[in-house]
């Protein structure tokens, strides 16, 4: 194999490509943007400390080294496709050669920040199953070059899929203005807003009465006499309303034009964003785990969120949006939508199996202990009468534990394991049994007393947890899923 011995040049007839020249400028902007906060902080702290700090030299040094790094990267990096592989060569002093077989590619994502959109360039990320995070990162390419590369990468082995380009993609789901407004209105940022209010109060601190007086006077001018309490309440309500409107605005801008389409070759393409545009392509066969979630409020309105975890997608929590397939799906369309992702999954005819009834006692002990501890704290802080709250807390704990028992459920259905969890934010986890990587059963000391266990079913991207199953059932399910995973055969990113 000649390319193994002489890897520095592409094969005959293949042309090595470069990054877009704007790489250098954008890298500079990126570095400046990243350190801007630190610089502002330095200047402000220096100013408050009575000393003027000159940040210019540090800025020049950073910008200069950034430009140098970006320039070297731009000048040295070449990429090309040969014999079904993407080859990326980079580095001057120590040359690095990265070879990615096209059939190992899980995801190709095109990202465009606002600056990228203005410049007409794209940040291209390639994910394989090797681990979390992008395997290769080409920043930046011109829009045309990125599209060309993407279609070649996803066509598999050397442009075999080019013939299908003519067929039109099919829209699976797309967001309208009404949905986006609803999504923002129910995005429940109350916690974040309250945190901001608390921070503001801390910041204003001793000046608060003066501010309230001003507000009171202002309100009195409009609506007659207003008590200080009403003024405080009105300002809090105004802040909350402002935060809520901000949340709606951010959602509408962030998810603007959300579209999930099915390409002629069966892959799913997702694109969204007004300022920063994101575009991702996922192969349904590579879905390791499906999460269907809904907050308490959205469940009342009948809306669900669907996320797919593919191997090689970022770690849970970090950039979880990259696996979001639909942010706001009508409950009635849920079954059909999921069936398009996992054809053997039918959410309509599901019979859930409950976990062990001992889950109620365990939940009661857990919530009850926390509640009694809170009562003790309150009693120490405000007086003995707080102990009278104990019966109420215990009753609430029992109700909550019963509710938890009713929510927790699992079942095996059409070659999938389904798990239902979440007291307020309901969550269905769907794991195709062939994607299971390992299984674990754990028992905490209280669980051992009750003869119950938590079963963890892990895939190459994310895991499902069934808490408080009876020991026997957990062991049986563990054995059954192990056997099922074994019959599917070796794990391949594409195998169903």
């Amino acid at each position, binding site marked *: 194999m000649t390319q193994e011995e002489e890897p520095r040049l592409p094969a005959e007839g293949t042309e090595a490509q470069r990054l877009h020249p704007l790489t250098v400028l954008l890298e500079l902007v990126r570095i400046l943007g990243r350190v801007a906060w630190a610089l502002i902080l330095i200047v402000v702290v220096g100013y408050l400390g009575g000393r003027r700090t000159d940040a210019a030299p540090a800025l020049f040094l950073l910008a200069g080294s950034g430009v140098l790094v970006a320039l070297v990267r731009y000048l040295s990096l070449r990429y090309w496709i040969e014999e079904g592989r993407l080859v990326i060569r980079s580095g001057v002093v120590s040359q690095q050669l990265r070879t990615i077989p096209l059939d190992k590619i899980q995801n190709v994502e095109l990202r465009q920040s606002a600056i990228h959109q203005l410049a007409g360039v794209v940040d291209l990320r390639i994910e394989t199953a090797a681990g979390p995070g992008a395997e290769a990162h080409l920043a930046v390419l011109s829009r045309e070059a990125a599209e060309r590369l993407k279609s070649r990468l996803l066509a598999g082995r050397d442009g075999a899929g080019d013939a299908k380009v003519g067929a039109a993609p099919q829209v699976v789901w797309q967001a309208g203005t009404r949905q986006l407004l609803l999504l923002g209105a129910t995005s429940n940022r109350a916690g974040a807003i309250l945190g901001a209010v608390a921070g503001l109060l801390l910041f204003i601190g001793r000046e608060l009465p003066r501010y309230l007086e001003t507000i009171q006077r202002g309100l009195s001018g409009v609506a007659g006499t207003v008590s200080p309490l009403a003024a405080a309440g009105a300002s809090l309500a105004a802040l909350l309303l402002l935060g809520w409107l901000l949340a709606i605005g951010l959602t509408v801008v962030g998810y603007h034009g959300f579209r999930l389409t099915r390409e002629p070759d069966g892959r799913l393409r997702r694109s969204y964003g007004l300022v920063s545009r994101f575009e991702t392509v996922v192969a349904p066969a590579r879905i390791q785990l499906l999460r269907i979630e809904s907050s308490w409020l959205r469940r009342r309105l009948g809306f669900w969120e669907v996320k797919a975890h593919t191997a090689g997608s970022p770690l849970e929590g970090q950039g979880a949006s990259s696996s979001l397939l639909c942010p706001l799906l009508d409950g009635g369309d849920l079954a059909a939508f999921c069936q398009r992702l996992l054809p053997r999954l039918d959410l309509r005819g599901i019979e859930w199996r409950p976990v062990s009834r001992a889950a109620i006692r365990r939940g009661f002990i857990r919530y009850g202990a926390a509640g009694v501890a809170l009562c003790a704290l309150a009693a120490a802080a405000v007086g003995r009468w707080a102990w009278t709250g104990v019966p109420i807390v215990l009753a609430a704990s029992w109700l909550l534990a019963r509710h938890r028992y009713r929510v927790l459920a699992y079942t095996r259905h059409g070659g999938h394991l389904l798990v239902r969890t979440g007291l307020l934010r309901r969550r269905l986890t769907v794991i195709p049994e062939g994607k299971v990587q390992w*299984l674990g059963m754990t028992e905490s000391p209280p669980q051992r007393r009750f003869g119950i266990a938590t079963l963890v079913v892990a895939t190459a991207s994310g895991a499902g947890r069934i808490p408080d199953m009876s020991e026997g059932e957990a062991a049986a399910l563990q054995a059954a899923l192990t056997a099922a995973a074994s019959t599917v055969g070796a794990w391949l990113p594409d195998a169903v």
Partner: protein
Amino acid sequence: MTDAGLESAEAGGDGGDGRGADEATRGLHPVVRVGWMLRAAVNALVLGSLAAFAGSGAAKRLPHLPLRPAAIALAVAAVALVLGILHAWRLFATWRWAVRPDDVFASYGVLWRTRRSIPRVRVQHVDVSSGPVDRALGIVHVSLHVAGALGPVLTIPGLAPAEAEQVREALLESARRH
């Protein structure tokens, strides 16, 4: 997977509490306890020094209290050592593992019990490693990796090198078959 060495390995453990100990499971190499106890001793030493430090600080701040930093440090170290040794002993007693036809299985844990199984076809690669103490004791660790996980999903601590080699061969064999 050959069954050679099963009896000798079995002799080390007292079978845990009997739960989950299938007939074909094995225990760890008995000498692994020495390593765990050494670790417990080091932990006790660290905790004891921390206690001595905190104790002397408290004695200086609160001169009216009859605090004796040395006694505190000794007591903390002694308790930590005893707990560490007990934990090492119990953990060894609970450790069972097996390479079964379908999966690699392990069950262990003193307070929190874990029973983990990895389908054999999912094992991507097997690491056999040993630190300086392990080498002095003549044992190795076997770690199993699957796709998509950052670290090993299962580490069997403390096997005789020959036994570890058997495990590795058995798993590679099944990887070739599939």
